[in-house]
């Protein structure tokens, strides 16, 4: 049995993995860059190893340093989390060579699914429906123009190595083809070191629906139902929920079977996700497979009742799946909101900084996976995700109401966050009615970007608080400079502890 796991990640996912390790009696090893010495994952782990400077390409992406830390610590397995090296075939291979268990799929599966073009070909061979388009990368700008003419506008340009919306461009007009192609290639090269880009027919206003799968090393594969991830901003998921309000039991069953078939075709092992796009008539197409744990995995955990990291570790340990498909069902409804350090009023620009104050929402049906604490400075080098709120309700209505309650009580000072933006999503009629697709944010931007109301009292109260805080600070300074200068006005002010009359 695995005894010590090195978590090759940081932030909330590192802590989330370590929590499960602790429950399983497994020691956890953190790695950290210069910027992360004070990060919670270092504090939470049993051991911690420094692996390099702050930029991730000098630390969290350096396979050598991570393997080195794993050997020093005597870790017998590595969990890659999501992002960083989680979908890096070389890393999976290297672990294997070193006799360290990689908690994830083989390099072959990663390569096959990581290259979107190969993935498309594999799925077509396994009779999994895919979006119409090319099965070869575009070789030149001329080739692109020709191919896109054949597929027909609108199309999506996609990085073959892509994922998470990077290196992706929608093209609707002919004159945009080349600028978009260049942008997609540049972004793909910057993000993945590979600029192969291919073409898919653009399915307008689709739903993004994904299936969670688990596959052991004995050929058993199960799915843990769907997640609805259509609330996206620039192809980045913002809110996820399960079950999907769109889904019918019949289609769910069918897609689950397709997801299992796709997983088998990938010769997959571990936890993975089959992403589909779906049109309003519930036609669905394979989009890509994520060969790792997803950010949004907790909503599945909540509704199905299974700790996915625990299953990942068991699978890596060579154990058979504990659950059969017929054991599983969806219980109630779960929604996840991602809280980023970002400024919704300023084009969602990342907003790093020091957390001055935080009030986390708690109570019935609330799971909160985060990593920041008061006084922690969110580094400028990594993903600005602060935490994830995962809410359960007995039905979708209750889950939405509870999410609103939790977002309302969630307060962070020091950095700007998307909390109020998320609250507005929960209040938007299209979301409340469950009638939305990936165009949701664009379609509802007037509602979502509307300025928050603050009536006269609210403004006045804020002003009064600032004024009094300022006076208190001023008083402290004065007292320090002239401790004997008894200013009776200030003193009297100080004495009025409670009732302040302005």
């Amino acid at each position, binding site marked *: 049995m695995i005894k010590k796991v090195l978590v090759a990640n940081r932030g909330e996912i590192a802590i989330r993995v370590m929590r499960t390790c602790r429950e399983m009696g497994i020691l956890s090893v953190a790695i950290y860059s210069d910027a992360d010495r004070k990060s919670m994952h270092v504090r939470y782990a049993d051991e911690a190893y420094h692996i390099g400077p702050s930029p991730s390409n000098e630390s969290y992406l350096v396979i050598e340093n991570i393997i080195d830390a794993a050997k020093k610590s005597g870790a017998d397995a590595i969990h890659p989390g999501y*992002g960083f090296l989680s979908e890096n075939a070389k890393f999976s291979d290297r672990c294997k060579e070193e006799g360290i268990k990689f908690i994830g799929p083989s390099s072959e599966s990663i390569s096959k699914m990581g290259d979107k073009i190969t993935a498309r070909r594999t799925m077509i061979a396994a009779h999994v429906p895919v979006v119409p388009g090319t099965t070869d990368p575009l070789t030149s700008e001329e080739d692109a123009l020709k191919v896109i003419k054949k597929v027909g506008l609108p199309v999506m340009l996609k990085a073959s190595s892509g994922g998470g919306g990077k290196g992706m461009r929608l093209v609707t007009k002919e004159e945009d083809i080349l600028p978009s192609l260049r*942008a997609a290639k*540049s*972004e793909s090269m*910057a993000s993945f070191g590979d600029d192969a880009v291919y073409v898919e027919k653009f399915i307008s206003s689709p739903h993004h629906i994904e299936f969670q799968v688990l596959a052991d090393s004995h050929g058993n594969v199960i799915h843990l139902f769907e997640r609805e991830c259509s609330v996206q901003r620039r192809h980045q998921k913002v809110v996820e929920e399960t079950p999907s309000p769109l889904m019918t039991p019949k289609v769910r069953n069918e897609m689950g079977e397709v997801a299992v078939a796709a997983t088998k075709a990938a010769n997959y092992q571990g936890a993975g996700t089959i992403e589909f796009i779906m049109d309003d008539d519930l036609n669905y197409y394979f989009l890509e497979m994520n060969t790792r744990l997803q950010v949004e995995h907790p909503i599945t955990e909540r509704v199905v009742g299974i700790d996915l990291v625990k299953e990942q570790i068991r699978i890596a340990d060579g154990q058979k799946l504990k659950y059969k498909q017929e054991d599983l069902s969806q219980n109630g409804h779960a929604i996840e909101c991602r809280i980023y350090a*970002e400024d919704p*009023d*300023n*084009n*969602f*620009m*990342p907003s*790093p900084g020091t957390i*001055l*104050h935080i009030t986390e929402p708690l109570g019935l049906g609330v799971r909160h996976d985060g990593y920041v604490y008061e006084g922690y400075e969110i580094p*400028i*080098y*990594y*993903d*600005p995700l602060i935490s994830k709120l995962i809410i359960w309700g007995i039905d979708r209505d209750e889950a939405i109401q509870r999410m609103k309650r939790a977002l309302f009580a969630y*307060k962070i*000072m*020091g950095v*700007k966050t998307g909390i*109020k933006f998320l609250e507005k999503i929960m209040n938007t009629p299209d979301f409340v009615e469950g009638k939305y697709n990936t165009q949701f944010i664009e379609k509802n931007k007037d509602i979502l970007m509307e*300025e*928050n*109301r*603050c009536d006269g*009292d*609210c*403004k*006045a*109260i*804020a*002003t*009064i*608080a*600032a*004024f*009094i*805080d*300022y*006076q*208190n600070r001023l008083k402290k300074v004065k007292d320090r400079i002239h401790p004997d200068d008894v200013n009776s*006005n200030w003193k009297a002010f100080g004495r009025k*502890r*409670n*009732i*302040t*009359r*302005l």
Partner: protein
Amino acid sequence: MLTATGKHLAEKETLQDYNVDLVEVEKGVYSILYNNKSYNVELAPGNKPKTYTINTLYNSYDIEILDAEAKYMKNRKSDDMDDDSTISSPMPGKVVRVLVKKGDSVKAGETVIIISAMKMESEYKVKKDRKIIDVLVNDGDTIDGNQPLIIIE
């Protein structure tokens, strides 16, 4: 927008006569009872002296305490309609693409540069029609936080 003068706030029409029960419950966090309504206000000192960022129930404000102990409050968004003369990123990152060159004229809302930082690509736009005075970086450059990237008129 609210303005009022320091100690004599009660006498000004703008803030009327607020009889509030106010306590600092945590550092920078105030619990306020006004007409038995419960308000929570969180304050953080702003970047400049005498300024605050304030979170109320629904809003985030920047407030400036004016001289003579008066104060001035503005909604974060409302005054955001002017460009700084230098475009820079608050975080270090990488220039994904520069979309303008020295001497170009750009229209309001047009993107001038795309920066990748904290795993996100951000587009920097101008808010009004502008002329590009100088471009100080190239595609692919690694940049520091607050380093001048583009100078506009």
